[in-house]
């Protein structure tokens, strides 16, 4: 029974690191540049061949990799041709991780992971430019 429980735990754990992208890649663009506060995010989803992928039920989860972090969730609105827009609230400075989840056109659930490094606290007078996040990550 102990062995079975251990095996079940291991199986459950291993599934955590499996590829859940379904071949989907997410390219992110932020307006203004990622900073603490509200940021508009444009997500372009492409399939394995690099074409824009028609996906549905897309949502974003932004979090940081430290214990006790409360993640930020936002739904994404379709703008057509695999492009989605959303509004995110970065609550802390530092390195963020952005999950994009949704369903492919044939109903498979996918999840991509991108890094959003160096989110900064802005001085009150600063007017950040629009900068893309440094490439999609898996």
């Amino acid at each position: 029974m102990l062995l079975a429980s251990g095996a079940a735990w291991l199986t459950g754990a291993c599934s955590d690191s499996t590829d859940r992208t379904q071949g989907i890649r997410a390219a992110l663009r932020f307006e203004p540049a990622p900073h603490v506060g509200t940021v508009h995010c444009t997500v372009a989803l492409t399939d394995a061949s690099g074409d824009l992928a028609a996906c549905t039920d897309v949502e974003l989860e932004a979090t940081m990799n430290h214990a006790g972090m409360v993640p930020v969730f936002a739904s994404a609105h379709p703008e057509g041709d695999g492009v989605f827009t959303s509004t995110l609230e970065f609550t802390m400075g530092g390195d963020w991780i952005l999950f994009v989840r949704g369903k492919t056109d044939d109903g498979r659930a996918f999840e991509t992971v991108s890094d959003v490094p160096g989110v900064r606290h802005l001085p009150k007078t600063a007017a950040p430019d629009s900068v893309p996040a440094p490439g999609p990550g898996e």
Partner: protein
Amino acid sequence: MSLRPSPHGHTALPRLDWLRLPLIGGFLRWKHARLGMQSVMAVLAALLVVEGLFGPELAPKNLSTLLVWVYWRGALVLGLLLLGNVFCMGCPLMLPRELFRRIREPRRTWPRVLRRKWIGLGLFALALFTYEWLDLWASPAATAWAIIAYFAAALFVDALFRGASFCKWVCPVGQFNFIASTLSPFEVKARDHTVCQSCTTKDCIKGTFEAPAAASTTAPRRVQRGCELDLFLPAKVGNIDCTFCLDCVHACPEDNVAVALRLPAEELRVDPMRSGLGRLSNRSDLAALTVVFAFGALLNAFGMVGPVYALQRCMAARLGTESDFVILGILFVLGLAVLPLITVGATAWLADRKSGQEPQAGALARAFSHARRFSFTLAPLGFGVWLAHYCFHFLTGLWTFIPVAQHAAERHGLSGLGRPQWGLGGLHEAWVWPIEVGFVLFGLIGSLAVTWSLAERDFGVHRARAFRPWAGLHLVYACTALWLLAQPMEMRGTFL
């Protein structure tokens, strides 16, 4: 009621004794109470190891990182503030050694040359460094391996050496707890010293032995051990080196042990001969441990704010290296050795000069002795900063265990806890800020009070002159801590 300490550090306070409380007293007097607490903690530790190694890789979704770095650290300092050294009391690390010692008793005693806190101090500094270098807060697997390594080290040391060698000389968490518990409101102490004066068996230190059969030639069997940390209760002063194991409570045939209310930091205001420790004023190792405890608190808080990253980038550019190990190593040497040596050394030298001492041969040795005596005044401030920092994480993440536990249950097919409510956080930072300020001020007041007591004791009419430089150091320290804690939190370097 006078709050002036007696030479032994016992101010008259209302009698409140854990062992006399209903339910709690009964539980603590139960011989297997500690084993029960350790067993619960050991099971929890085992689950954290499994979760850390096989659970989600993302730290905020893993119970191992969350419970260790947010909840355990918060509970640890709050326990020390409100009660005493309660983590050592239920420490699960001692459980494997208890089992091992049922098979084989160690015969060696801890080497005399190592009977100082230098190893513990070094490991404490190494633990702080490793936490930053390996981003332990961001790595469930590294957290799990840290737990495993800790258990292995404790078992290794205590399998080789008798008594509580690991607790007293090695354990970095224990050393942290020993210094922090000088600020705790409860202390294990003799209830009535006159009872101890008439005691001939000294069970509290030697243990309790079974009466041998009349014709037996074998040595009497010990049925209850005494203090394994060499604290003889009638001469025990304060909480340093006390793990609240309550062996003395179970050993004392006169029921003369109390876990009693006392004035926090009182033990720092006096310098009697202490059992198992000697005089604090002669203990360079304990003074150094206190200084590292205090400056480590600042360095640990510095590691989570924006300015540290700017400094690291600057250092990387100037040194032409991007090695975290090198840059953090330099920062730690500066923060835990160079800066304390300069500030504490200069303060001691200045206080010594200002207090009417003429410059002469041996002035350096006198300043060193002064620094050794007054270094202990940093303990309240250091504890205040540790409290502020750990309570920030604890309180701002107060409810985060709920979604993480729901997520863990969901992963293993248990739907009873419902869908993870990821929006649950904790108190808003704006509410926690006054609490942080309060802890730092609490530490500052404690440090100033202890400094004044020591200045009165050592410098008599020149006490104010000796007090001022140390008060200046404490104020600078407190302002630095408040500035650090006021910085918005930033988390970097977790992609490396």
